[in-house]
């Protein structure tokens, strides 16, 4: 393929003109996305609605708010014995639809160790929300999550408060 060929006829799909073009096309052929990356993208999309607008979980300091919010929401659901009651609460943290989306999102996500600091921050926020809503002690599920990721107990971690403090204070107002 040369420039004149292109001008004359083929301005559409690339067609190799010789072996060199064919090798170039083979070298540059797009590969399939890894399963992990595809799931991450789908998880972002699944987490997008509602969660971003939810006032409680505003993780503005993180680039992957939908993902982290999904994790935080899951921790919240693990922590409160009756998550269905959330939609009837005056706090109205998540609707039934959002809860279903959260569950779907988390099912898609790979919880990988590099996310641990963000999960830890989310976990502390969720713990504070949980205390505000129910006053219950952490459930077995919550402890399991902590043990699984080797996270410090929320009450002991960062006595100065979570970096999510302003967001939480806003919701208390």
């Amino acid at each position, binding site marked *: *393929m*040369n*420039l004149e060929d*292109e*001008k004359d006829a083929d*301005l*559409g*799909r*690339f067609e190799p003109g*010789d072996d*060199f*073009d064919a*090798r*170039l*096309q*083979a*070298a*540059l*052929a*797009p*590969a*399939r*996305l*890894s399963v992990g*990356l*595809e799931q*991450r*993208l*789908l998880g*972002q*999309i*699944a987490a*997008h*609605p*509602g969660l*971003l*607008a939810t006032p409680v979980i505003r993780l*503005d300091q993180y*680039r*992957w708010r*939908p993902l982290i919010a999904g994790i935080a929401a899951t921790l919240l659901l693990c922590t409160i014995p009756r998550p269905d009651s959330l939609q009837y609460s005056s706090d109205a943290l998540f609707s039934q639809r959002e809860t279903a989306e959260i569950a779907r999102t988390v099912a898609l996500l790979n919880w990988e160790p590099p996310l641990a600091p963000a999960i830890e921050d989310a976990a502390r926020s969720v713990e504070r929300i949980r205390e505000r809503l129910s006053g219950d002690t952490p459930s077995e599920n919550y402890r399991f999550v902590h043990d699984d990721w080797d996270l410090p107990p929320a009450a002991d971690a960062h006595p100065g408060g979570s970096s999510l403090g302003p967001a939480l204070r806003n919701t208390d107002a």
Partner: protein
Amino acid sequence: MTPGRPLSVEQRALLERLVREAAPRVHAYVRRAFPRVDPDEALAETFFRAAQAAPGLERSPDPVLYLLRTARTVCLRSLQRPATAEIAGDPPAREEAVPSADLEEMLRAVAELPDAQREVVVLRISVGLSFEQVAEMLGIPLGTALSRMHAAQRRLRELLGVKR
């Protein structure tokens, strides 16, 4: 970044279809045209932005081109930030098929092309855009896209010692 509006069922379906059908091409574009950018992060950022601007994506006559433009903006902004920026940096280790020596040599030659030429080559061959689309996306005249492609092919042949 302001929170996005909830996605409609149609918008979500469009995004999910684009993940499955167009994301590999966007990934290939980022990976080959912007070698200093982490393609996984850039792709995730691209789809995040696309979800935030879902009405614009939905109205776009060519959603793939819309995604490619978004990815380009993400990459260019990333490269303008300091080296510790979120997206630019050492590419992460990844599991993938090891290209043959021949293809490896070709990829090295592509990486040596001037940025403007390499981008046209990648958009044309890897992404599969027409020259009109390449020109539209890069905001350059059609003749410029054609001449960059021609120059790139000539340079690649020189680098690899191939005669026409």
